[in-house]
C-alpha cells in the first residue's frame, strides 16, 4: 500500500480528524478517545504496524495529550520505491479530571511498559492494563512528577 492510500483510508475511520503528512514517511492524525481502541486494532491488523515505538504523555494544561508512534517494519506501507519505513503518529486528548484511556498492551507487547511509564510519571490510567504499577519511581511515591502542577517537596532533614 502506498502512503497516500494509507492516509485516505485512515482519515475515513470513525473519530479520526486532521490527518496529514508531516514528513515523507510520517502520517499524523488525531483520534477521538472513545474510538481509539478500535482504531489501534485496525492499525495493527489491517495496515501492518507491528511495532509500537513510543507512547508520550504531555501535560498541556489543562488537558492531557497522548502521542503514539507506530512503525511499520515489514514495509506493508511504502513510500514510492524507497526503503523508507512508514510511521503513524496518533494524538489523543484526555480531560484533566478523567485521564483514562483503554490500554493497548494486549495488541503490542512493547506498549506495556510505555503505559506503565506514562502512569508513573504523568498519572494516566490505562484501562485493562494487566499490571499498572510504577516502573521508574518507587512504590509509594506520591504524585506524578512530570505533571506541570507537581509541587516539589522540600525535605528538611533532621540531624
Amino acid at each position, binding site marked *: 500500500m502506498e502512503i497516500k492510500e494509507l492516509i485516505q483510508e485512515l482519515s475515513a475511520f470513525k473519530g479520526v480528524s486532521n490527518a496529514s503528512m508531516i514528513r515523507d*514517511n510520517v502520517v499524523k492524525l488525531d483520534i477521538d478517545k472513545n474510538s481509539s481502541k478500535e482504531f489501534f486494532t485496525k492499525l495493527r491488523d489491517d495496515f501492518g504496524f*507491528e*511495532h*509500537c*515505538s*513510543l507512547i*508520550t504523555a*504531555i*501535560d498541556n494544561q489543562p488537558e492531557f495529550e497522548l*502521542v503514539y*508512534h507506530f*512503525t511499520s*517494519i*515489514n514495509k506493508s506501507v511504502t513510500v514510492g520505491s524507497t*526503503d*523508507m*519505513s512508514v*510511521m503513524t*503518529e496518533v494524538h489523543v486528548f484526555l480531560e484533566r479530571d478523567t485521564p483514562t484511556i483503554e490500554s493497548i498492551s494486549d495488541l*503490542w*507487547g*512493547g*506498549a*506495556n*511498559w*510505555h503505559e506503565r*511509564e506514562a502512569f508513573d*510519571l504523568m498519572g494516566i490510567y490505562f484501562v485493562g492494563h494487566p499490571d499498572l504499577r*510504577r*516502573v*521508574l*519511581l*518507587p512504590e509509594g511515591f506520591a504524585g506524578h*512528577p*512530570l505533571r506541570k502542577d507537581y509541587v516539589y517537596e522540600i525535605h528538611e532533614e533532621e540531624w
Partner: protein
Amino acid sequence: MAEMWISMGPQHPMTHGLWTLKVKVDGETITDADPELGYLHRSVEKMGERRKYFMNTTLTDRLCYASSTTWTHCYVLTVEELMNVEIPERAKYVRTIMLELQRLASHLMWAGSYMPDLGHITGALYFWRDRELFLNLLEVPSGSRLLYNYIRIGGVKRDLPDGFVEKAERVMKLFEQRLDEYSDLFENSKIFRMRTEDVGKFTAAQAQNLGITGPNMRGCGTKFDLRRNDPYEIYEEIDWDIQTREAGPGYGDCFSRYMVRIDEMKESMRIIRDCFKKMPKGPTLASTIPVRAQGEAFRRTEDSRGEALMYIVGDGTDRPYRWKIKSPMFTTISAAPHYLKGYKVADIPAIMGSVDICIGETDK
C-alpha cells in the same frame, strides 16, 4: 517441586548496572520473570525542561555511558528538526564517522562484558583492549574519552584534526586482523557455542511486537535498520549493507545476536572508510543557530542498541516544554519474561548479556 521467586540484582554480576531480575523457578527451570528498574532514575526528561536547548547535550551524553555520542546525536537531530537548522555537508560526514566509531566502541564494550558472563575473562580483556583504540580515536577530535559533548546543535564542536584519517586507518587495519583471531577464538570454540546456541530464542514477529529493535531484531533475520529505512546524516550516500543473521527460519538466539554485532563492526569500518573517501571540505558548524523553538518534532536514529526516538515539544521559549526519550533497552528488558521462560537459571547471564543492556538510558 515447589516454585519459588529468587531475586538477581541489583548487585549481581549478571546485571551490568543496577536493576533487579526476579525469576520464578521450578527447580532449575525458569517459569516466570519480573524485571524491576528505577535504581538509576535521574529524571532526565524533567531536568531537560528546566535547561536551555543547547545545555541538554550534557544530559544526553550521560544517558548511556557506553554509547554517549549516539544519544546526543539523536537529541541534536530532533532539535534541528524542530528549529529548522540546516547543517553543513562536512559536518554530516564528521557526525557519521563519530557515530560509527561510537558504535564500534559500544559493541566492543558489549562483547567485552559478554565474555565474563559466559565465564571467559580473557575475552573481556581482548575486546576492551581494542575498545581503547577506538576511544583514543574518539578522543582526538572531542578531547574526552567517555562523555564527548562533541555533536552540537548546528554541526560539531570542531573539525577532524590533520592526520586523523591515517590514524583511523591504522587502528581499523589492526582491528580487522584481530577480529579474524577472535573468530577463531570464539566462533570456533565449542564451549562458547554450547553456551549461546539455541539459548534465549525469540522470533522476528515476537521481537517486533514486544519492541525489541536494533541488533537483537536483526539477529532474527529482520532486515530493518533505521540508517537505511529512515536515513539521516549521510547514510543514504554511503555504500553499506544491513547485516542480518538468524539461527533458524525467522528466529534468533544468543549466538546470532553475537554474530550480528561482529558483522556490524565490520560494516561500521566500511562506512567510515567510505566517509573518508567522499568527505568534502568546508565548515563544520552552521553560522546561525536559533535559541527558541515552537512546535513539535521527533526523530529516530539507529542507536547501538536499537531504535532511539526523541520527541520534543517547544512552546516558543528557549527551553523544551516536553522532552520524551525512547530507550530501546527499556522495552527489551520489559520483554525479558518472554525470552527467559523455559531456560535454566545458568542461562540467565548468557541471555540477558546477549541483548546488550545499558541501564543509564533505560532508567533515564
